[in-house]
């Protein structure tokens, strides 16, 4: 199977149960959602669900149609390569930072334009947003210091220019 990555953005009614309907379409076919982010849009009655999933073209086409068929779904858009859009993950990472290492770690964070959002006696917390590759690169660089805990948000994405989903 062609395991291509698909980034899908869905505008839904901001109601109880909607996320379960959307997620149910994936789970009932045995597909995993690699990443999921849900939040209010410029209209408080609507939410945007951004999902990353994998599957071949026919499967994704069927999922898009099924999503469109849901009553609470208003629009479905798949961001495709070649399309002009911005995609971001958010990372919060707490890393061991003994006094001797603190400067180094802060320098690395700075190179990635990460922010230090919490400082303790033996740790630092870094906030970083960016595309997946950048987040992964920073995580790799932090590993040797000892990552105590980290959390990543689901992917979000928005088209550039005047185009809206």
């Amino acid at each position: 199977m062609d395991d291509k990555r698909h980034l899908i953005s869905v505008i839904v009614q901001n109601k109880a149960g909607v996320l379960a309907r959307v997620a149910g379409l994936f789970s009932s076919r045995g597909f995993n959602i690699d990443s999921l982010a849900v939040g209010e849009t410029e209209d408080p009655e609507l939410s945007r669900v951004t999902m990353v999933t994998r599957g071949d073209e026919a499967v994704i086409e069927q999922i898009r149609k099924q999503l469109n068929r849901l009553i609470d779904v208003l629009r479905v858009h798949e961001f495709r390569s070649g399309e002009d859009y911005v995609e971001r993950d958010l990372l919060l990472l707490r890393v061991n930072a003994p006094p001797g290492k603190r400067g180094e770690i802060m320098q690395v964070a700075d190179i990635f334009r990460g922010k230090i959002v919490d400082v303790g006696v033996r740790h630092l917390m870094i906030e970083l947003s960016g595309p997946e590759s950048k987040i992964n690169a920073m995580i790799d660089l932090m590993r040797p210091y000892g990552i105590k805990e980290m959390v990543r948000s689901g992917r979000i994405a928005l088209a550039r220019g005047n185009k809206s989903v």
Partner: protein
Amino acid sequence: MQRKGAEILRDVLIDAGVDTIFGYPGGAVIPVFDVLVESSIRMVLPRHEQGAAHMADGYARATGKIGVCLSTSGPGATNLVTGIATAAFDSVPMLALTGQVKTPLIGNDAFQEADTTGITRPITKHNYLVKDVRDLARTLKEAIHIATSGRPGPVLVDLPLDVSTSSWDGEISGEVSIPGYRPNTVGHVRQIKAAADAINSSERPVIYAGGGVIIADAHQELAELAEKGNIPVTLTLLGLGALPGDSPRFLGMLGMHGTATANYCIQESDLIIAIGARFDDRITGRIDAFAPHAKIVHIDIDPTSISKNIRVHIPVVGDAKSILREVNKLLKPVERKGWFERISMWRAKHPMTFKENTLKPQYVVQEICRASREDTIIATEVGQNQMWAAQYYCFRRPRTILSSGGLGTMGYGFPAAIGAQFGCPGRLVWDIAGDGSFQMNIQELATAVGYNQPVKVAILNNGFLGMVRQWQELFFNKRYACTDLMANNPDFVKVAEAYGAHGMRVTERDQVRDAVEEAVKTEGPVVIDFRIDREENVFPMVPAGEAIDRMIGGMA
């Protein structure tokens, strides 16, 4: 005007033209029943909630109107589930109303609580939990609109007890507006033109039409397409009656138990015009060997049906009736002499036959057909009885077959027949049943007798779960694992009589005609126990996973 939730429900339903509700009461819906029983709506009490759901389904399929069923919370709601799933699979417009525990108790494991909207989410077109009486009228109207428009389906509304009993003084009139729901009804002009061009240039076309044609009320347009375009027609199980079964261009049903002619026709065609059908696996057989030479036009209101199983070349999304009207305008007369000669050859070589030495189920179906009128309604159960009914009964009008095609629900036919009889008083309604299926909702005899609904049940009794036994015979070395019911089958005549229905038993071929005629003449419900040849098989048959021209049996 101050109205309680239950009164709002009553008023919205009456306003929508609902005249019958199939409902089983329980703690969470007592106030609802208390209001409805005093209204102009006829309340029908089945003996099991599954019966209520299938009755609403049969009512809807036979009349074209929305079917309404009602149950209490918890087990009442879960008992509806099979009926709702059956309706969803076959695109039947249904409103399922379920009681729910009081809103403050939801999620607290209250007595008779179930997460009904959660359970039914994948088997409804849409569902709602109403948490505020102010939302009730709008929700019900949306539910009815969604259930009956586009590709129809069941919509469930979960009604907590405190919503039914609290009051609201708002207006219930007003238009329904659902921003995320705009079914596409008008076919694309360019696609319609492409479809017509493909038809006009085709040498070996075949129409493959399904239940969608009947739902869209497009049977006349279908007949015109077949006639004007000079195209043979095969129908799915749910499409039977969309073209009269005695039409010269009708090939019979296609698929696993279709006629040889229909299946050969599909396999040799150069163009398939699929209308309101969904290329189900019982139709296509082995997908990569299906119709190898054919270009495919697919007319369907549901975009998700298009290119789901089989890649479609010319999709036309929209309402079949209006699309066919437009296509028909563009048709050119084409003779296709060679194609029809080939079809005649198949027909002559492979007629539908069976040996007449003993009491055969096919003969029973033929006799039921002989004693029927064009508007007679035939419900079936699921399994061999269903296939024999489809093969040997001549369906002449739309909405005369009630059968669980997609989900394949045993126990569907009898309650569906009762529901249809409520919707179509004065018409003859049969349930062609098996001894296994009939016992799945046999308790509804009480409903048929209690409301004097004169449904006739023909049990094709072979003392087996016959279709499974057939597979065991053919593919499992005759190991009849758990399919022999004979030893513990009840005396169906006595069962019928115990409920107050008329019971008959037929053991010989020459008794069939008289028994059928007596049943038709009898005023109330009748059960006939036909003791058919125990090991009769449904043929022809395409073994699962084979190409549809690889039929076995009955290929004289």
